[in-house]
């Protein structure tokens, strides 16, 4: 059982899905710099691709992703045309260098597009990058998944699927604008298994309006009864000043910090008791799932989609707002679909922002990654007085040990992992706002 030390969780910290984080992206990185980074990719380099489909049938109020309603077929098809062009542009540029091993479709909801369009997208990527058998993963909105989609997932050989479940409680669902009966998730889970999906993930949330520990436990029990291979249990981040759609959520109905912590802790204990292996600070996986195996073997990584067993250092993002993660830089495509399409139509990479990864930031990034993924990292030689003092607070509470030049997180430190990582983030000095509460 985790112990709640509210005094350690006062400072909002990044989720560290990258380092430097997206908050440090500027327009100093543009298409030209991105092209240089693509040029640096050598023959045979393992590549992962991420394809962003920024559409959903319905917009949920809690969601912080870059999405729009897929109500107009013409808008969807214009976007898909640009996506095909952007993919062709990158493939043309790489001219056969790099080997695509993974393709992830995320959003939004990839299943907001027509099954036929999805098959064509997969086919075109496979041809463009000569990737005959990549590991394909897809995020799926479990509401209204037509049988056509299931046969498409089977034939396209999709191996990983991730469902946004969030909560099974009808009242909480209503309070976040996502009504999604348990039966839908149940039937989709069975269909995905039949279709050959070997690893199914459920995204769940705590800290939702009207949610308490009891309701979270009910959702977790229902979740476990469906036996997903992976579970991500995220804290809902309420930031209506940044994400206007969250204004529809009743702030008064949100649980306070102590309840949030208790939910995260109970959730963790329950899932562990049910045989799941904790991965990082908010993921869980069955011990035989590739993610759990990677974690045990010290091969866990963190990318924009969370904790992953993907070991590629080259992630190329396609679509509006998609982020490419390359050894020398992070580069993000234009968020606005119109701006994105206009750039692609002119034959340019639609890069809008990004940040260089110089050797110093890579060193810090590795350390933060080590703390979050492996729970230990080499202790830097020189710490400022403030860093030492902050670290000491965690040591005194028995959450962290230091010795033999290592900082080592105890298992009970999981909810504090981001906060501990932030100690070693020089960019955190004097920064406030834009990040969410650590638990």
């Amino acid at each position, binding site marked *: 059982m985790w112990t709640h030390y509210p005094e350690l969780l006062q400072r909002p910290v990044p989720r560290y899905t990258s380092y430097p984080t997206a908050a440090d992206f500027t327009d100093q990185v543009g298409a030209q710099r991105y092209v240089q980074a693509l040029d640096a990719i050598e023959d045979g380099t393992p590549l992962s691709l991420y394809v962003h489909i920024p559409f959903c049938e319905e917009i949920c109020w809690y969601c912080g992703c870059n999405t729009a309603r897929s109500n107009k077929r013409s808008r969807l*098809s214009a976007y898909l*045309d640009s996506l*095909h*062009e952007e993919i062709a542009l990158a493939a*043309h*540029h790489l*001219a*056969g260098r790099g080997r695509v091993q993974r393709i992830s479709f995320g959003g939004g909801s990839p299943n907001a597009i*027509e*099954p*036929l*369009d999805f*098959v*064509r997208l*997969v*086919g*075109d990527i*496979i*041809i463009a990058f*000569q*990737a*005959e*058998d990549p590991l394909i993963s897809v995020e799926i909105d479990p509401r209204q998944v037509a049988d*056509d989609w299931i*046969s*498409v997932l089977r*034939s*396209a050989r999709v191996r990983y699927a991730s469902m946004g479940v969030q909560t099974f409680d009808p009242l909480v669902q209503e309070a976040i604008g996502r009504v999604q009966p348990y039966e839908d998730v149940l039937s989709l889970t069975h269909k995905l298994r039949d279709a050959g999906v070997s690893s199914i993930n459920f995204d769940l949330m705590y800290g939702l309006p009207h949610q308490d520990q009891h309701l979270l436990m009910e959702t977790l029990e229902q979740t476990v009864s469906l036996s997903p291979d992976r579970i991500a249990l995220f804290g809902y981040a309420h930031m209506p000043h940044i994400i206007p759609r969250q204004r529809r959520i009743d702030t008064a109905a949100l649980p306070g910090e102590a309840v949030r912590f208790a939910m995260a802790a109970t959730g963790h204990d329950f899932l562990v008791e049910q045989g799941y292996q904790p991965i990082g600070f908010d993921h869980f996986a069955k011990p035989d799932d590739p993610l759990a195996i990677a974690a045990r073997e010290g091969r866990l990584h963190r990318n924009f989609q969370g904790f992953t067993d993907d070991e590629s250092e080259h992630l190329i993002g396609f679509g509006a707002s998609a982020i490419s993660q390359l050894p020398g830089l992070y580069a993000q495509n234009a968020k606005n679909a119109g701006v994105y399409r206009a750039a692609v139509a002119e034959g340019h990479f639609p890069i809008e922002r990004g940040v260089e990864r110089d050797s110093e930031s890579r060193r810090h990034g590795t350390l933060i990654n080590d703390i979050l993924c492996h729970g230990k990292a080499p202790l830097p030689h020189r710490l400022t007085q403030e860093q030492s003092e902050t670290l000491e607070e965690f040591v005194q509470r028995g959450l962290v040990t230091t010795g033999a030049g290592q900082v080592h997180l105890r298992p009970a430190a999981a909810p504090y992992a981001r906060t501990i990582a932030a100690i070693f983030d020089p960019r955190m000095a004097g920064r406030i706002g834009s990040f969410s509460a650590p638990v």
Partner: protein
Amino acid sequence: MDHCSSCVVRNRAICSSLDAGGVNALGKIGRHHRLVPGQTLIWEGEDSTVVANVIDGVLKLSTSLSDGREQIVGVVYPSDFIGRPFGARAQHNVTALTDAHVCTFSSSDFDRFAREHPELEHKLLDRTLSELDRTRRWLLLLGRMTASEKLANFLLDMSERIAPSGCKTEAPLDSFDIPFGRQQIADILGLTIETVSRRLNDFKAQKIIAVPTRRRIEILNRAALSDIAATPNR
């Protein structure tokens, strides 16, 4: 078009999903075209203005690489469907390898028709899925296979897809004419003509195939050919 009732691919082409009325209505918006070897029906990257059923002949799908070379990404046979309904741009060049006979539709006409006939739209999805499967096998063939494996796959694929006119059966043919020469086989498979001839002679010597004339292929031992075609990856 009154040809439809006597069309040799009517039982296998995408229109087979339609009832008689539907076939009739689709036929009215179709046009027959004949292509000579080397003639391109659809150009990669151009606006997608035409889709077609292959009635007779063999065509190649290709794409241009950044260094200007051509890469073949597939071969289409009678009853296959070419082009991309509901798509803005053509993804491949479609070029006749032999004399070919196709039934073409303007994309906008076809799209409108398919919207009104969900059974056709469904068939289109099925076709696209099998194309994806074939694309993967094709890439595997080009990228990973030895000359013998390539040739064995090519012969098996052709025996399954060059089925005789009007025939609805799925059974592959054990005897068929290859509609083009050794050089074209070599080009399609990314081999030299010498290698193609040598491997065909090997198959012949092993009594796996017979080659009674320059164009004719008889498969004598399909199991052995399948064994050669099978790679550890499949």
